[in-house]
Structure formats: C-alpha cells, structure tokens
C-alpha cells in the first residue's frame, strides 16, 4: 500500500487536543504517516506545513466554535497555493446545522463527538483511495 501522509492540525486558539491526538494515534496505528502540528496554528502555518510535508489529507480539530471561519480561510488559502484538491476533514464540537455549511465551503467530511475511530480511519482510506484513482496517480 502507498504510504499516505496525513496532517492533523489544531487551528485557532483552542487548547483541547485530546481528540486530535487520539485520532492521530489511531491513524498511525492503521498504517498512515501522521504529522501533528501542535496547538494554535494559523491557517497560513497549516497550509505551509501541508505543502512542505506533501500531505495527502488534512484533518482539522476545532472545538471553540470558530470552525466556519477557520475552515473557510484554510480552504481558500489551499486553493490559492494550488493544493485545493487535498481533502480536508473537520472534527470537533460542530452543531449539526453547520455540517452542510462546512461541506459547502469545501470540507470533505465532518465528524462530531462520539464518532468511532474505526469510522474515521475507514473514511480516510476511502477518500484517499478515491482521490488517487480519480487523479490517476
């Protein structure tokens, strides 16, 4: 299997990183290469890391309620930097009403509290394999 690289990022000022770290750990156990940014990353820093590390997928963990603004900014920047095709997952305390809005912005998947790790791992795999076959690489 191709070694996929995944960036797990904590944008914004929120310091609750239990979920981000647990997801990162699970993805690593499932055979992915995982880069975790640590806390308080700006959208610019996240996009820069994604480019430098040449990642295949970005996972954002946001619990502070700033998910709409932050996701939008990150996706806009990704497009500007020419990496708009990298799928973006968002996890955290996301009110159900905001899920369609996140998808509209261009987020690929949204995971709320209580999502099983196995589901996240499976979705990551599905999306990455889908993306790979679609782009023919």
């Amino acid at each position, binding site marked *: 299997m191709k070694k996929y690289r995944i960036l797990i990022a904590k944008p*914004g*000022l*929120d*310091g*609750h*990183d*239990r979920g981000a*770290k*647990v997801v*990162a*750990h*699970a993805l*690593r156990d499932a055979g992915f290469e*995982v880069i*975790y*940014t*640590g*806390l*308080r990353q*700006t959208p610019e820093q996240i996009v820069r890391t994604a480019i430098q590390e040449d990642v295949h997928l970005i996972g954002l963990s946001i619990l*502070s*309620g*700033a998910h*709409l*603004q*932050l996701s939008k900014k990150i996706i806009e920047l990704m497009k500007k930097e020419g990496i708009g095709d990298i799928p973006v997952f968002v996890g955290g*305390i996301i*009110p*159900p*009403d905001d899920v369609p809005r996140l998808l509209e912005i261009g987020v690929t998947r949204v995971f*709320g*509290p*209580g999502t*099983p*790790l*196995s589901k996240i791992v499976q979705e990551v795999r599905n999306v990455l394999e889908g993306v790979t076959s679609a782009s023919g690489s």
Partner: protein
Amino acid sequence: MYDKDQLKRINEAFELWQNQVENDLKKLPERKEKFLSSSGYELKRCYTPLDVSDLDYLNDLGLPGEYPYTRGVQRTMYRGRFWTMRQYAGFGTAEETNKRFKYLLQQGQTGLSVAFDLPTQIGYDSDHPLAEGEVGRVGVAVDSLKDIEILFDGIPLKDVSTSMTINSTAVILLSMYAVAAQKQGAKLDELRGTIQNDILKEYIARGTYIFPPEPSMKIVTDIFEFCSKYMPKWNTISISGYHIREAGANAVQELAFTFADAIAYVEAAMKSGLDPNVFGRQLSFFFAAHNNFLEEIAKFRAARRIWAKIMKERFKVTNQEALRLRFHTQTAGSTLTAQQPLNNIVRVAIQALAAVLGGTQSLHTNSYDEALGLPTEQSVQVALRTQQIIAYESGVADTIDPLAGSFAIEALTNQIEERVWEYLEKIDSLGGMVRAIELGYVQKEIHKSAYEQQLAVEKGEQIVVGVNAFQTSEEKPVENILKVDPELEEKQKEALRQLRKQRDNTAVRGALSELKKAAQEGKNIVPYVLEAVKCYATLGEITDVLREVYGEYTESTLI
C-alpha cells in the same frame, strides 16, 4: 476496627462463600472476567471487613472537620449550608453575559463563575488577527476594565462570590475585578471568590499558556503574596485536576498530577519567602466528577486525606486551615454525548451526586446539549435544577459523609491513595512536576490513558449508552442550539477602538512602562498591573509588555 478473632471468623466464612461462588460460576459465569475501575485496577466481587482490617478510624478517617479530613472539611458540612451552586457561564459580549448571570442568580444560583473567551485567556485583544473567529465563542470577551464593569453591572461584588476560569492572564483579570469592585464601593478584603491561576496544568492539558513555566510560576506567587496581604478571603488558585481528567487522565492520575502541580506551587511560594501556614489557607482545588460512581466518591475522600498529609508531613504546616482541601467540582463534559443528548441529564445527575457524597464545596453541573454547542437557558436551568433536587429532595446532604464505613468505599479510598503516592514518588524521582512536564512524561501518561479509553469504547469493552450500544436509528435533532451572533466580534472591536480614542493614552503608556520595569526587575507585578488596568490599558497591551520581558512558550508536540 475489628479484633483478630472476629476477622478470623469472617475469613473462614468468606472462604466458604468463595467456594460456593466457584460452583455457581460453573453454571452461570459472570458478565466479565475482570471488572475494572476507570483507573484500571480490578474491583473485587465483594468487599468485607477483611479489605479494611487495617483501618484505624481516628487516624485514617477522623471526624468531619478534623485531620485528616477524609470525612469532610467542615464540622457540619451541608447541614449548615449547601455547597455553592456555581454554573460556569459566559459567551458573547459583557452585556449578554451580564444578562445570563442575572438570570442564574434569579434561578437560585449562589455563586458566579465566569467563562472567558480564548483571546482573553491567551492575552489577545479582540482586534488581534489571531482572535479572528474566536471572540465571545467559548466565553465572554474582555478587553479592558470597561468590559468587566459591564459584566458585573448591577451585581454587588461585595456580596457574591465569583470564580474566574483564567490562568495565564489571571493577574490582569483579578486586577480588573478588584478595581471594578472598588468602583462599586467594595473593599478588597471583603471580596470572595477564586481565580483559577493554575498555569502548570495549561502546559499538560488545556493549552492556554503564554509564558514559559518559570516566569509563569513567578506571576502565580506574586498573586499569592498580594492576596495574602490585601485579599484574604480570595482563593488565589484553583489547582485543577478537572482539565487533566478531561484530557484523558484516569481518576488516580487526576489526583496525582493535581497534587504534583500543587506541590510545585507550594515549593515555589516557599522559595520566594512565603509561609505555607498563611498562603496555604487560600489554596483551593478543582476536580471532575465522572461516571464511575463509587470510584469517584472514593477519589474525593482520598484527595482530602492525601492533601492534609502532604501539607502536614512534607511542608510542616501546623495551621489547621491550611491543611484542609477545599474543592470545586464540575461534572464531566467529556462524558456527554451528542447522540441521544437527553441521556446526559442522567449522567450529570449521577456525577453530581458523587460530588456531593464526596463532600465538594462548590459544584457546576453540565448542560445536556454541551456536546453540540454552548448551553441554552433551558438546558442550564435543568442542570441547575439537578443540583437543587439533590440538595433539597434527595436527603443525601442531611448527614455527613454517609458512605463512610462502607467496606467498598473505604477499600477504594485506600487503593486510590496508595496509587497516588506511587505517582508522586515517580514525579519526585524525575525532579518534580515542572521537570516532568518539560520531559513530556505527564503528557504521555495522559495521552496513553486517553487512547486506551477510546480503544475500550471501540471494542465495546466500555459501553456508552446511545453511542456504542442502545443506539436509535432516528435521532431527533436538538432544537435551539445557542448561536453566538457573528456580528459581536465587530461590535467588540468597535468598542475597543472607541476606548483607545477616549482614554488618557499618556497615562496608559506611563503605566505600561512602569509595569515593564517592574517585571524586568523581578518585583511583584500585581500593583503595577492594577495601575495599568485602572487607566484602561487593555488586556492585550498588558500581556504584550509581559511577553516582551518573559518570552513565549512553545510546546514540544508529542503524540
């Protein structure tokens, strides 16, 4: 508690009973091979006097209000007065939060507890680029004294007790509170309340640090010193296991890491010449109440005993008031589920009951919709009513520490205590808590525990009702999730622009440069922050001065 003959007879009977059980098990095995507590130790099938045969009542439990305080820190406990019902609240602007405070007081809440937004917690004004999207989200936005004046408008600060969850910028918010109270006509020595001011747990669990550990500890002890002179009724710190637990620690780790932090604060304060008999009276604690009912009750009882021993034996404290562990409890946010959210009301009730049976001094009950967003007025009301039902209807507050003497509770209390001492020894051997944090030891332990817990849920070893068992196919959406008005950020920024125009900017510059000098010279910074606050210097401006002098902390990222 039992004489030898009696224990012998119990032992014989117990062995016979065990044999009978073995026979029964052949026909009907138990639900699980092992029954584990949330801290991972095995629960026995049944506890008997044999498990607490060494218990020395007077030395190990004592009477309520007496050393080692296992049974409570006051002689009459809730028969005199219930715990303080203190709901953590704050969102949007100071005006909005002021309304919520007044609502809660009117509903019978007995103390205030302020949640600040992240920019306020990390020392950024609302117009800072990093504050974008975060203003007023997880708490109220405070940029200057003006916001604090609005926040407490119409609430007499000499009469209420206020808790503020604020850490790296605690010195600024405490100063703002003190000045606002004085402007209302209150005296500093009348003010009652708590600032969290527990910076060490920010590095391991909550993430709102600004400065490196050393200057952060200096600010903490500056506050101890100032308050022991001028604000004697104020709790200068709330040493918090809550966030450590919520980050994934188990019950034993929660106590162990909290006390390791506490030891570090006491040592730092003593090093700067303060007397633990004096500042020790103003230390308070903050714990979580999780689902594992018996273990949680035992945890609170063990906590009081451990702390009394630490203060007496390690720090040679003789003042009784400085030996008593007083704590606030919050039910466990991380146990609340987005699935079937009404179930959370039941979880919160069980957790709150554990806190009360454990002898808490103050309690926050979570609202059932918190896995979805900020609590609404309705969900907060149910949460507060849960406390009131426990207090006024259940009768559990009418006798002190009613579970004392239960074989299981006493055995669990002992077991937790023993494991906590093991951790404390380990941390001492690493060179103390600051060093253990720098080494990443504590963070790794917490993460390991968090991951194991999640795997237990994945494998179905740990049942979460409505999530990995008893799911419903059709979830009804929760209505009325509280939305923070996205325009408030602009309003807050505009108010800040006006403030900067209207205030005496020469005075602000003067106060800030005095503060800088004091920080550089290692003086107690509290009086200088007070002066800066008085002339409406903003939180961001004050923090920037301190950032220049102390530098900023960056975490080493470990997974």
